[in-house]
């Protein structure tokens, strides 16, 4: 049993580097990017080592340590190594290092470069932490670190108010998802007493059936299903599924390598990874899996339709990511871990390629992001162009590209599981092919409509794109011969080959491209108006403005939020008014006492008058002082008499 403590180094290395870079001067030339790439390559080396170990040993290896002792119970953290971890590690490190190389040159002229790479390192640490972690709590903590890193990176150019707003929106929306995640953790912790996935003694969350014990916990769902649902809410927040997807398209404000790394390859995949990791909890209840599948397909459809109406190159890719994530969720919902994860891995490659390609296009057109102002870039930027087309083919699941294999798997799974979902997914794939061809035709064919003169990007940006293009195309074959599918899910069910599904997937892919070509023929593009604008009763307007989801949110949740704030604020004001009134009362009372009490009552009536009275009565007393000794003697005898009398009476009353 080889020790897997080296897995701790994978997240720690980038963390240490991030700490180190934080102290560097903001614009240290190339050393920051070099160091960052070096650390990630080191992580890649470790993940290869992990992969080799995992190939060799079938079961999950774990190593745990106690993080916190609270009243006899200790909360433990640890690392776990199984097929899921190793595959994700390989993908993240490989794609990450390529993107970092690309970022090295992309951010060449930015004066806060080291700060950017520090954040990238922080993100890498968080992401690798998620993959490696064996405890739900540690996963959650890295999850939030990744959220923080995305906040910092999206809002990197913070002097742009829109970037800052987008960053905050991203953080808040993901945090909403995280709240669900947190409650899920609390629920699991409450009933199982431990937060570890796998422990040697078999008492981990995923091993023993503690959670699946009581079946009807929450309106029909068993305990483990409820926990799974809550974790899924966290995944929705992070992976941008339907209700909480609004932040992802706005996150394009950040620099393109950020979008590539975070919003294509890794972070958004974290949600899918979480579901895959805790799939044991999901398996319990079929209706939950159905729910996930339906949500995934709804997201896919919605995002694909919206993508058709977008003009910003990165927004189209963002919506495509949202739809592909929905697709992965469908894969998970219908097929199982392997289906979802396989597509995740292939998607990471070609989506990263598309984003990096888009980045170099934007770089080439001097930060021009609107596709209507681009055109005919294939001639001016051939290398990026062809690599981009490769990526597009893979995304549209052109036969025998990486995308085709993984999409085919999910379609098979969907076909077996539920025909309705299959139909929706097929249509969405058709739409995917449609909007991708629209984008390529807009960007690469016809003549250049912008007023810049685009130029090819430097070699350091082209190299990662080319490597990714190779993987986008060859990825499928590579996965086939290393039996990636079985490796990912040794025990899960295998979808048999089904002819109709293959036929449908070919038809969808090729049909989409053909119709796309017909619609967006370069000549028609010259008219400037988007061919789809002719759609009846303003559907196109709807699509273009993203179904006004942001406005709806702003209207509903935003207003409720503001109303709650105002209500509390008014309540505070009310309390303050009460406080002010009480203080005024107290002061008035004090003044009243002072005036009436002191001046009039005490000082005037009380003191002065008594003095007067005393003065008037005083002559009675002075009369006694006659100077006559006899008078004095009389008074003394009177005193003696009174004394004896009082003494006598007191004695009589017997106090």
């Amino acid at each position: 049993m080889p020790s897997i403590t080296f897995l701790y180094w994978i997240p720690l290395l980038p963390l240490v580097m991030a700490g180190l870079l934080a102290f560097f001067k903001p614009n240290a030339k190339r050393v920051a990017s070099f160091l960052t790439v070096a650390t990630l390559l080191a992580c890649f080396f470790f993940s290869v080592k992990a992969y080799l170990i995992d190939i060799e040993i079938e079961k999950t290896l774990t190593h745990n340590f106690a993080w916190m002792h609270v009243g006899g119970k200790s909360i433990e953290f640890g690392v776990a190594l199984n097929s899921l971890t190793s595959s994700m590690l390989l993908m993240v490190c490989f794609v990450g290092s390529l993107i970092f190389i690309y970022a090295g040159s992309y951010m060449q002229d930015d004066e806060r470069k080291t700060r950017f790479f520090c954040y990238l390192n922080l993100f890498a640490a968080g992401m690798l932490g998620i993959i490696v972690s064996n405890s739900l709590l540690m996963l959650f903590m890295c999850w939030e670190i990744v959220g923080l890193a995305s906040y910092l990176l999206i809002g990197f150019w913070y002097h742009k108010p829109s970037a800052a707003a987008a960053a905050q929106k991203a953080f808040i929306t993901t945090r909403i998802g995280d709240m669900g995640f947190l409650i899920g953790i609390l629920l699991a912790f409450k009933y199982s007493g431990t937060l570890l996935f796998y422990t040697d003694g078999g008492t981990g969350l995923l091993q023993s059936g503690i959670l699946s014990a009581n079946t009807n916990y929450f309106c029909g769902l068993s305990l483990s299903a409820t926990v799974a649902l809550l974790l899924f809410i966290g995944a929705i927040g992070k992976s941008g599924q339907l209700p909480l997807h609004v932040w992802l398209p706005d996150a394009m404000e950040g620099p393109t390598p950020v979008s590539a790394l975070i919003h294509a390859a890794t972070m958004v995949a974290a949600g899918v990874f979480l579901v895959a990791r805790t799939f044991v909890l999901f398996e319990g209840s079929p209706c939950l899996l159905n729910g996930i599948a339906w949500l995934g397909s709804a997201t896919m459809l919605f995002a694909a339709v919206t993508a058709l109406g977008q003009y910003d190159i990165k927004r189209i890719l963002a919506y495509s990511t949202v739809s592909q994530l929905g697709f992965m969720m469908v894969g998970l919902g219908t097929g199982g871990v392997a289906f979802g994860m396989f597509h995740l891995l292939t998607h990471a490659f070609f989506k990263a390629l598309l984003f990096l390609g888009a980045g170099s296009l934007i770089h080439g057109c001097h930060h021009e992001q609107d596709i209507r102002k681009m055109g005919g870039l294939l001639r001016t930027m051939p290398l990026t162009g062809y690599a981009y087309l490769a990526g597009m083919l893979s995304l549209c699941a052109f036969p025998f590209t990486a995308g085709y294999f993984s999409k085919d798997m999910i379609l098979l799974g969907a076909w077996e599981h539920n025909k309705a979902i299959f139909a929706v997914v097929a249509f969405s794939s058709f739409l995917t092919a449609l909007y991708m061809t629209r984008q390529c035709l807009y960007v690469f064919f016809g003549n250049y409509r912008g007023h810049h003169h685009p130029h090819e990007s430097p070699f350091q940006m082209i190299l990662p794109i080319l490597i990714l293009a190779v993987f986008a195309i060859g990825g499928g074959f590579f996965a086939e011969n290393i039996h990636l599918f079985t490796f990912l899910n040794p025990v899960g069910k295998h979808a048999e080959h089904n002819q109709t599904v293959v036929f449908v997937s070919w038809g969808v892919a090729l049909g989409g491209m053909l119709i796309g070509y017909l619609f967006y023929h370069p000549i028609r593009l010259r008219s400037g108006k988007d061919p789809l604008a002719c759609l009846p009763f303003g559907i196109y307007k709807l699509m273009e403005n993203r179904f006004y989801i942001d406005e709806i949110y702003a209207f509903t949740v935003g207003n409720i939020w503001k109303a709650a704030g105002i209500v509390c604020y008014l309540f505070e004001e009310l309390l303050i008014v009460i406080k002010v009134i009480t203080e005024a009362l107290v002061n008035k009372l004090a003044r009243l006492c002072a005036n009436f009490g002191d001046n009039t009552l005490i000082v005037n009536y009380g003191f002065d008058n008594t003095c007067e009275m005393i003065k008037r009565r005083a002559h009675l007393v002075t009369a006694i002082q006659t100077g006559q000794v006899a008078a004095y003697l009389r008074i003394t005898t009177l005193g003696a008499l009174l004394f004896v009398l009082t003494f006598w009476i007191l004695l009589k009353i017997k106090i």
Partner: protein
Amino acid sequence: MLPLEYILILSAVLFFIGLAGVLIRRHVIIMLICIEMMLNAANINFIAFWRYNPNPELHLGPLFTLFSIAVGGAEAAVGLGLVIAVYRFYNTANADKFDMLKDS
């Protein structure tokens, strides 16, 4: 035989007369005399109580009376000295005229 109350009543009456004398009479010397009478009334009481005491052999009564007599004597001497000095100042022995004590 002679009950103690009688003696006490006698001394009380003597005391009363002395006190009345002091309060009534105007003449200073008479006042002094009456004070002496009051003093003697007290002495009677001392001896009376000593006599009726269960263990008189302590002789406390007579002892105390002797001392009291001595003090009475001294007091009379001083009193009369004062009377003479005051008399020289006021040229009359009438106590009502002595009103130097009353501040103006």
